[in-house]
């Protein structure tokens, strides 16, 4: 009897630390990053063995020498990451962040070129237009999903292409937007560019603060409001949210519209950034390529576990690795190899997060069945030790599970 109560005490103590959600998410993310780096290093070893060590070192630390750029490039992927993560909270896989981003970019640029507004107001209107563009491009797949039950993955992939080709066509056929002999957009007027933070040789600007503010706002919406409650409930269990009388259709449309608006903001932030050379601006080349920042958003969201706060950090991390990658060129690595390394790191980072989700789910199901079958105490013990062996033991336990379900 005495023994039992003692072990129970221990259990609670351990659980307090390891059981907290933030802790397990954080450790999982670190683990994922580590695994990504290991595989990235292997790729560098294969490509050019003698340079691998300094190369990976450059990837890891290069960003520290260009912190302003890290922040600058983190902003758009923070927004697309939020666009993916927010929808994912509701169980929607918004793979269309690229299209929404491109649409947002176009709307913002259009306002930049053709709206004649005073300085100080112009860029704000451009940002708002970018949000509107993305919103529309998220809304349409949302409507299809809600009213016709068309899978949002399929629609949003299609909308990536439709958005990209439309925008490329519109840009090339709109006089005043496109410089044909340079095959890129014209320079935006200075009034349309976002206020710079004044760091030399860097485009870092006020948008990072807006992005972080939006992430915090989303965090509040998700954790404090009835809308967030409904959204997460639907994401966890669609059937139960229907049973509880939640308006699933409205929520799907709303979520996709918000997600689209977030990605659209990303597009606006990326292209309304101020240029360090007076008289120029960030430009877009309509070369029929789907914006990679949209897909990077998926990696950002996965690494950040779809949590708005987590996404702030994961976007900075991925941007950091990307900046570091450019430094690796100094060690003779080609652009393509660096891209491969970065992709491998991102891929594995995201991949392990997915694996962790799968493992967590399997573990939960296992615990669940054990708890139902054997009472609370035993399962509490089981939840303390979570070695992989336990997860592997699950199929063996199917009989027990069956009994639990009776």
């Amino acid at each position: 009897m005495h023994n039992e109560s003692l072990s129970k005490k221990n259990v609670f103590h351990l659980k307090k630390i390891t059981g907290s959600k933030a802790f397990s998410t954080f450790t999982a993310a670190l683990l994922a990053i580590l695994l990504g780096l290991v595989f990235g290093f292997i790729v560098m070893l294969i490509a050019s063995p003698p340079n691998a060590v300094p190369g990976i070192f450059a990837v890891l630390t290069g960003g520290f020498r260009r912190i302003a750029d890290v922040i600058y490039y983190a902003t758009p992927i923070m927004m697309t990451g939020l666009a993916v993560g927010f929808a994912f909270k509701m169980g929607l896989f918004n793979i269309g962040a690229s299209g929404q981003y491109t649409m947002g970019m176009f709307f913002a640029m259009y306002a930049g070129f053709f709206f004649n507004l005073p300085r100080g107001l112009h860029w704000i209107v451009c940002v708002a237009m970018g949000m509107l563009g993305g919103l529309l491009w998220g809304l349409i797949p949302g409507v299809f999903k809600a009213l016709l039950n068309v899978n949002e993955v399929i629609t949003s992939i299609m909308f990536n292409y439709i958005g990209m080709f439309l925008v490329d066509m519109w840009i090339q056929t709109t006089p005043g937007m496109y410089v044909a002999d340079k095959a890129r957009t014209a320079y935006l007027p200075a009034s349309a560019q976002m206020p710079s933070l004044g760091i030399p040789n860097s485009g870092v600007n006020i948008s990072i603060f807006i992005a972080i503010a939006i992430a915090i706002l989303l965090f509040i919406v998700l954790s404090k409001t009835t809308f967030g409650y409904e959204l997460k409930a639907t994401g966890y269990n669609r059937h139960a949210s229907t049973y509880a009388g939640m308006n699933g259709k409205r929520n799907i449309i709303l979520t996709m519209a918000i997600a689209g608006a977030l990605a659209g903001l990303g597009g606006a932030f990326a292209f309304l950034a101020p240029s360090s050379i007076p008289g120029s601006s960030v430009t877009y080349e309509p070369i029929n390529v789907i914006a990679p920042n949209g897909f990077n958003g998926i990696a950002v969201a996965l690494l950040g576990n779809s949590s708005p706060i987590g996404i702030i950090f994961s976007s900075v991390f991925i941007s950091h690795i990307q900046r570091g990658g450019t430094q690796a060129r100094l060690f003779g690595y080609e652009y393509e190899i660096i891209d491969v390394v970065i992709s491998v790191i991102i891929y594995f980072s995201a991949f392990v997060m997915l694996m962790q989700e799968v493992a967590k789910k399997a573990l939960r199901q296992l615990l669940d069945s054990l708890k139902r079958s054997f009472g609370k105490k035993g399962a509490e013990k089981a939840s303390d030790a979570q070695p992989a062996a336990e997860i592997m033991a699950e199929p063996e336990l199917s009989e027990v599970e069956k009994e639990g379900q009776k």
Partner: protein
Amino acid sequence: MEDNYIIEMLNITKVFPGIVANDNVTLRLKKGEIHALLGENGAGKSTLMSILFGLYQADSGEIRKNGKVVKINNPNDANALGIGMVHQHFKLVEIFTVLENIMLGDEPTKLGFLQRKQARERIMKFSQQYGLEVNLDALIEDISVGMQQRVEILKMLYRDNEILIFDEPTAVLTPQEIDDLMEIMREFARSGKSIIFITHKLNEIMAVADRCTVLRKGKCVGTVNIKDTTKEELSRMMVGRDVSFSVNKADANPGEVVLSVRNLSVPSSIHKTNAVRNVSFDVRAGEIVCIAGIDGNGQTELVYALTGLERPSGGTITLCGRDITRASIRNRSKTGMSHIPEDRQKHGLILDYTLEENLVLQRYWQPEFQNKGFIRFDAMRSYATRLIDQYDIRSGQGPVTIVRSMSGGNQQKAIVARELDKDHKLLVAVQPTRGLDVGAIEYIHRQLVSDRDAGKAVLIVSFELDEVMDISDRILVMYEGEIVGELDPKTTTVQELGLYMSGAKRSTVKEMSYA
């Protein structure tokens, strides 16, 4: 006496990571006896039988057959030792015939060609000997569940098994089929076969078993002779305390009509026909109406239509005088409907939410719990604390426990608490005690009766006959999507109810005077 045991499982211990599923359990099966294995959910019955059938290996302890130690590494070993099992979920190939299913895995062949005739003769012999009539050429998908069970039994006989394990065989059967099965089991015992009968239904044990071994939380509580024991003692052994079986309730005092259903039809999700056909009935305040019937006769669809999860194809539903046939779920809830759903994990709970978040699932939008769209966490916490206290919902960390980690009984209690505490006129409860043990069943039944006594209309759908007979004030029997009879639990018998449920009997339209 000692040598009479055909199978002995001695001091079996099986540990799963973190839990002892079987703790030093001993089970001795005599030749020619029917030995019941009784225990609550999760007591370790299935684990023990899985060890005997070779699905798991025991960590310690030994199995003896006729006094000799044997090693059972897989079901084939078990088969070779003459051990056969009828699983709770049948293992049959739906698109094969009965004959093909029985011979599957042990087919007589000649030069690689199947010898169906040989197999057929062999099966016919068993079928006649034990009165197990089946149509050998019918496809499994076309025959009833009771028939499918016979096929499973014939499979064991075909393999010359002499030790037969039945895992909860009566759960899917009608009363008549249960009687038939009991007779078959007795016949087996008479002819020298030994039977292990897993169940948690005490009546069946009293009716058919010779001895009974009771497990509780993985431990062996004891083995008793059925002749020398009572139902009460068995349940005390199983649960560890006294349990009352009959529901204590006063006579119903029905008031005005709360729910009124007229000519309701609901489409089937599987077939092109209607799953519910032209159903009409009323439920009044202060009465418990049970819809009895075998699973799959349209009950689920009926409830889906009542609660708004599915659109009816015809007819009207009126709740408290309001036509709610096409109302949204939220609207029905506001009009006064509470719903304890059939599948608590699919519909009733958000397993990854905390207990408090689940307790406000039907009410989070009310002013009490939100202010301009912001959740009032303090109100939610104090409300949850009150319900947890009042309904005795047990969990690891109180209001902040993740519901997934709670036991099934407490999950169900949480739903019951939420639905009963909500302002309601009508309670629709589907299988409210499914999968729960005797103690939790007793509790839920008490709550349902007190809800009725508080003047609510209660509509229960149940597949458990005992539950239907015990708790209802009025019984409606559903068969193939129609209500085929209205019975008074005080005057009817389980047998009569069974006849209605199996479609053998139905009331004339005149008796059902709703138009």
